[in-house]
């Protein structure tokens, strides 16, 4: 998308005589032969409307998180009374309900579990992916078929026995089940990284072998540095998955100081609600959701360059 397209007056084919309506630039099946101002205006209006629809919930959330309780539902863009202490209430507890909300704990837990989950899955998946990409060995295709097969398997099928395993070794009620299984790699990332390793010229590995590298140092010195973009994609994807997951924390955590942000916010929503004796202090829940979302947006902007590639390649395996 280096050149601007769709602008009237822009022409990349100057020498064409003014005969039939040849579509000039690129991919312009939507374009009338001569850029019709009406359709351009319509197009811009539609794009603007969609942008507003997609962004407004964020704006609404930020605005409502700064309002006092009684004004949350007035849906004004600018709060009539500013009430930024909602954010403080998250950390020191809601006055009337008197329970301290360990929001700071949830935040730290989410970061801690997210980093562990993403870090472990990146390393283990890279090891496994490298095995599938580089080595020739018996059963390779069968085993890779198993990797792809687990991608299709609905989580509900293994959910209960896996819970029973953790229960058996007395680790339910701890945070270990939320990340430890990532030590063993994850099918989607193995697939993603294998594709990437396959793209590295084999000569590089052979040269490293000539230099006397063993398989592992070859992996560490050649494969890993070259796969950095794919490793970043894996890390970011998994960090996001861990950060947003609700199901596992619901199953495994039972004390509110262990909660991750989604689990904590879920709880907060229930506690502050009217039917549990709360006053419907939604402004505090909204402040919590804003704080839970901001790190994701920061991560997104930091990793965007790699990220978009990673998402787009998903479609290519079709």
């Amino acid at each position, binding site marked *: 998308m280096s050149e601007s397209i769709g602008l009237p007056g822009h022409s990349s084919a100057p020498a064409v005589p003014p005969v039939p309506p040849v579509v000039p630039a690129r991919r312009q099946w939507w374009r009338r032969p001569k850029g019709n101002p009406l359709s351009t205006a319509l197009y811009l209006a539609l794009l603007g409307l969609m*942008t507003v629809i997609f962004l407004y919930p964020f704006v609404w959330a930020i605005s409502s998180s700064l309002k006092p309780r009684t004004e949350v539902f007035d849906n004004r863009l600018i709060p009539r009374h500013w009430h930024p202490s909602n954010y403080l209430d998250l950390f020191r507890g809601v006055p009337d309900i008197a329970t301290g909300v360990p929001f700071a704990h949830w935040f730290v837990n989410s970061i801690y579990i997210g980093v562990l989950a993403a870090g472990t899955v990146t390393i283990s998946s890279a090891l496994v992916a490298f*095995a599938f990409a580089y080595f020739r060995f018996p059963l390779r295709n069968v085993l890779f078929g198993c990797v792809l097969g687990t991608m299709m398997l609905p989580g509900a099928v293994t959910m209960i026995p896996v819970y029973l395993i953790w229960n058996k070794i007395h680790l339910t009620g701890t945070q270990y089940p939320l990340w430890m299984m990532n030590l063993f790699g994850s099918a989607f990332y193995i697939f993603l990284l294998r594709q990437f390793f396959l793209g590295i010229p084999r000569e590089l590995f052979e040269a490293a072998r000539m230099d006397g590298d063993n398989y592992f140092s070859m992996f560490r010195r050649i494969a890993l540095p070259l796969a950095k973009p794919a490793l970043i994609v894996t890390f970011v994807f998994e960090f996001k998955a861990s950060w947003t997951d609700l199901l596992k924390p619901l199953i495994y955590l039972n004390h509110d100081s262990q909660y991750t942000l989604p689990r904590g916010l879920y709880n907060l929503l*229930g506690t502050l*609600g009217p*039917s549990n004796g709360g006053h419907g202090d939604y402004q505090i829940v909204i402040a919590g959701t804003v704080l839970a979302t901001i790190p994701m947006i920061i991560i997104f902007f930091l990793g965007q360059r790699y990220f978009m590639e990673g998402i787009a390649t998903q479609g290519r395996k079709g």
Partner: protein
Amino acid sequence: MATVAASAPGPRVRVRRWASGFRSRETWAAFAFLSPWLFGFVVFTAGPMIASAVLSFTDYSVIGTTHNVGWANYHQMFHDPKVATAMKTTLIYTVMVVPAHVIVALGLAVLLARVGRAAGFFRTVFYLPTMTPAVAVGVLYLLLFNGDFGLINGTIAHFGIHGPYWLIDPNWVKPGIVLMQLWSVGASVVILLAALMGVPQHLYEASAMDGASAWRRFRDVTVPMISPAIFFIVIINTIDALQTFDKVYTAFFNGSTPYGTDASLFYVIYLFQQAFTYYHLGYASALAWGLFLVIAVVTAIQVIGSRRYVYYEGSKK
């Protein structure tokens, strides 16, 4: 096998040659690299699958004695009105959300394809909602779609439309959830945008030469050329929709809002309740296999049905 031409090595030789592969250093190294996954696969996937199948024939519930109950769980599944309701809810929702998702994603991708230089900015705009935690989406949904005070009904009231009670009215619960889900359409937009960019320009030029209208060019050039990406999105989102859990669970089953009615009882939510609220782990295992079967059948139908419509460049026919 034995009838292959005489010059080919016999089966025993081939087996021996194959088995000798296990002796090579490379194979040992490969399996060393594979070992984390092999362990995880056996302990956390293959083993649990077998265990889950076995459990589904018992009345296991963590405490108390366990009995072998034969097909009783599956029998109960077919006669449990809640299962029928949950399955119906889930299927209706899936049928609604998947086409809506594809149409909106395609529409947005087409819009973005035209933006040119600013595409990066708009791509970010449409992608950000997918970065938002599901619980946050559920919370926002609960507040924005409130029947009396919500922003949505407040906005459409300006146009003289009296908005429905999205959270309570059984007829409007599922369409509301579809709208919530459509907010998270961003990943599909990115995939489709990448596919759109890959369509060779000369095809458009050729069809324009033939006097094809914009719509014809879209229908007969663009859509076939990006059909693998569309197909991918259909499959992924169908599987996703059949397993809907977190957003709906947050919005409708949170102990503060009493909206958790049959209209929002999705299959996985019911399964989760059976497993971790009532600890009917045997029954829940049977429910999980029921879901597995439904997903497998639906996906198989889609794969077979797609053969006529999905065009893979480079493949024959």
